């Protein structure tokens, strides 16, 4: 059973029943799920969680929907990897990577969609919909297919091929909008007022957003029931970043871990960095920008949770950091070269951010640091494919191979000396 008890406005605190609604009718503030905390505390223990399934549904008691009827393709409980080689390169003694590439549709979006889809079915919706930069569309289409729901997903028309195919394969109605993500989001907000569809990130948003808390839960459990000293997460809308911190705090409030002193840092692509800009200017007034970056999954120019992200940053003494397109590509390659993880551009943003923070003392060498790698690299091959060594083309004999290998090594030496 779920301990969700109401929706509450984050701004004016007015309460609403648990319905498919998302903004306060009075002040337009975002609504957030509130829970029967005492009931939760009684029902959920480390042991009850550890007995649960090896998916994020092991935290069902902390989520706003009923696990027995979950739309579940096994999102979550992804690996937490000790990244010694990358840590050595960056000067961080205890660095871990939360590898959310290892989700059913290869991004963290499966966490939010499994919750939103479950809730949508509880509410009786027959159609799942979303505005997406790609990863969300993939996940919505997959979960809808698994639940036998109709899917209609809206994406900007300039997306990477992997993200288009990664939705189309599940046979949704796929709508490519001539515009950027913010245009798509506006259109979907308007459509949500017109059609009886469950837009996972519009009218299902209060429930949807709760799914991201599980990243915080998992990291704490996987570290042996303790919070890390420092987290570095990518920021698009800022929701994921805020919810990781909320997840850690909830575990502490339930007595499952000690009080949380985690510093929360966030990374954006320089070509779409409205939250970083506000942080650097010391304001919480996030001004929208027009995105221009290869990190399309982070290209939200008008981040609705930016205000709250800046609040968490201030409260936890974290940092905001940005990365250029070249630094993003270098970050993707560095992660792959040192840890064997092929992340999408958002992962490159995080690794580039880690590198900058570690170099500038923003992350201390002795801080137990967790970096969140939220999506897989095969989805955004375009970003790196022209920057990689092409294969050696050889005839099938040893001489040809050794000649080609020799030339490549010689070229490598010359490059290194150049």
């Amino acid at each position, binding site marked *: 059973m779920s301990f969700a008890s109401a929706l509450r406005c984050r*701004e004016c605190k007015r309460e609403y029943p648990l319905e498919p*609604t*998302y*903004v*306060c*009718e*009075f*002040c*337009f*503030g*975002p609504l957030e799920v509130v829970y029967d905390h005492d009931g939760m505390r009684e029902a959920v223990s480390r042991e009850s969680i550890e007995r649960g399934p090896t998916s994020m549904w092991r935290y069902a008691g902390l989520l706003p929907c009923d696990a027995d009827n979950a739309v579940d393709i096994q999102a979550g409980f992804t690996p937490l990897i000790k990244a010694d080689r990358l840590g050595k390169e960056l000067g961080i003694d205890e660095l871990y990577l939360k590898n959310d590439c290892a989700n059913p549709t290869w*991004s963290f*979006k499966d966490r*939010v969609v499994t919750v939103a889809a479950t809730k949508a079915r509880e509410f009786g919706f027959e159609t799942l919909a*979303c*505005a*997406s*930069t*790609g*990863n*969300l569309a993939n996940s919505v289409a997959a979960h809808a297919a698994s639940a036998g729901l109709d899917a209609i997903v809206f994406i900007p028309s300039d997306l990477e091929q992997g993200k288009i195919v990664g939705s189309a394969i599940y046979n949704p109605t796929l709508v490519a909008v001539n515009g950027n*993500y*913010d*245009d798509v*989001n*506006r259109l979907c*907000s*308007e459509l*949500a*007022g*017109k059609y009886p569809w469950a837009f*996972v*990130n*519009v009218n299902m*948003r209060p429930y*949807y*957003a709760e799914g991201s808390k599980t990243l915080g839960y998992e990291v704490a459990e996987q570290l042996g029931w303790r919070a890390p000293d420092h987290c570095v997460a990518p920021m*698009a*809308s*800022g*929701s994921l970043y805020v919810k990781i911190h909320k997840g850690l705090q909830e575990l502490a409030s339930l007595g499952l871990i000690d009080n949380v002193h985690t510093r929360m840092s966030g990374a954006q692509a320089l070509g779409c960095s409205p939250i970083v800009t506000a942080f650097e200017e010391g304001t919480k007034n996030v*001004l*929208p920008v*027009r995105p221009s970056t290869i990190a399309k*999954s*982070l290209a*939200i120019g*008008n*981040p*609705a*949770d930016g*205000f709250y992200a800046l609040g968490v940053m201030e409260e936890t003494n974290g940092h905001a950091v940005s990365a250029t397109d070249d630094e993003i590509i270098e970050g993707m390659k560095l992660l792959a070269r040192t840890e064997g993880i092929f992340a999408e551009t958002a992962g490159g943003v995080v690794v580039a951010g880690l590198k900058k923070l570690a170099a500038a003392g923003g992350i201390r060498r002795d801080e137990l640091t967790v970096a969140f790698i939220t999506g897989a690299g095969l989805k955004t091959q375009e970003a790196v494919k022209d920057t990689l060594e092409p294969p050696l083309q050889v005839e099938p004999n040893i001489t040809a191979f050794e000649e080609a290998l020799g030339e490549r090594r010689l070229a490598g030496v010359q490059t290194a000396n150049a």
Partner: protein
Amino acid sequence: MAVTVRIPPPLRKLTGEEDTVTADGSKTLAQLIDALEGMHPGLKERICDETGELRRFVNVYVDGEDVRFMSGLATELQADTEVSIVPAVAGGR
């Protein structure tokens, strides 16, 4: 000159459940909001804060363009302009 205004679900109680309304004679967004307030009392308070500025969680688009990229409340409206009021939902990706 008639401006069409798209009303989001949270405000439709104030417009008798109408999802679009039209208003005449407004040269700027600020004037339009005052005109809407005259037709549907209570609307302005929902869109603007105590200082008269647009609320933090309200996005207003004029012909699809966020007014924060234009002149905010001073944004000029043309004949047949479409204005859309949209709650600032945090997106996904």
